């Protein structure tokens, strides 16, 4: 099993995507299929951007097993008051500045759900959010 951990700085858009990029490199080195890497990278990048756009700080933990990749994104931030709405495509609480950069289209969580096999959102308003997600390394798909 390969374990990775990367810190995410809230508000620093210049660095958004750095952790996802590092994970992508490792997945490539491990010869995981291109299609699965693409899906994992979309889910991770969206999670990373969510932390940058909404939280103060956070970190990504990735465990690469032979049959699956487990990912956990933990942040200290405002939490999600309405998870059900946040899961809907097009719903966003992003600021105007963030939207002007091309984020905040309300596609983040739906993209994450679409590209993973398991997604759990634990959130406490005023404290933070933890996303737990899994991608099966099922080469039949």
């Amino acid at each position, binding site marked *: 099993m390969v374990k990775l951990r990367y810190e995410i700085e809230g508000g620093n*858009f210049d660095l958004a*995507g750095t952790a996802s*990029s590092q994970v992508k490199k490792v997945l490539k080195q491990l010869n995981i299929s291109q299609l699965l890497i693409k899906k994992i*990278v*979309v889910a991770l990048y*969206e999670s990373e951007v969510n932390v940058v756009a909404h939280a103060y700080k956070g970190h990504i933990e990735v465990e690469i097993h032979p049959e699956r990749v487990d990912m956990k994104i933990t942040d200290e931030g405002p939490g999600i008051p309405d998870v059900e709405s946040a899961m809907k495509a097009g719903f966003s609480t992003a600021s105007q500045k963030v939207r002007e950069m091309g984020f905040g*289209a309300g*596609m983040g969580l739906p993209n994450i759900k679409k590209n993973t096999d398991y997604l759990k959102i634990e959130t406490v308003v005023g404290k933070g959010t933890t996303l737990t997600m899994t991608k099966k390394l099922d080469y039949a798909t």
Partner: protein
Amino acid sequence: MTPIVPKEEQKMKVSELVEKAGLVVFAGETAVANEVTGGYVSDLLSDVMANAREGDIWITLQSHMNTIAVASLKDLAAVLLVNGIVPSAEVIARANDEGIVVLGTGEAAFSITGKIYPLI
């Protein structure tokens, strides 16, 4: 009868697109031999993450650091900035570091897409 052109000869390189569509190369000159297999036009990063495909040329007005991050994560062939947008020195430096081709045109997305579409 339409002549059968071998697939190898049909491949369109970024450098050929630059020449044929009169584009400016801002960054990533080392990667202009990248093959362009399609295109995607969008200014929403999540949309590009969700729907662009490897080898696409991404036509957009977003010229910040995350444009480069998205292009790199999605293995895009190039980014094409429209409306005469010029990326910052920092963005150019990042693109060069990551080997991402950043192109520019004075035209709007609609017209440059129309020009590029039949070339790919």
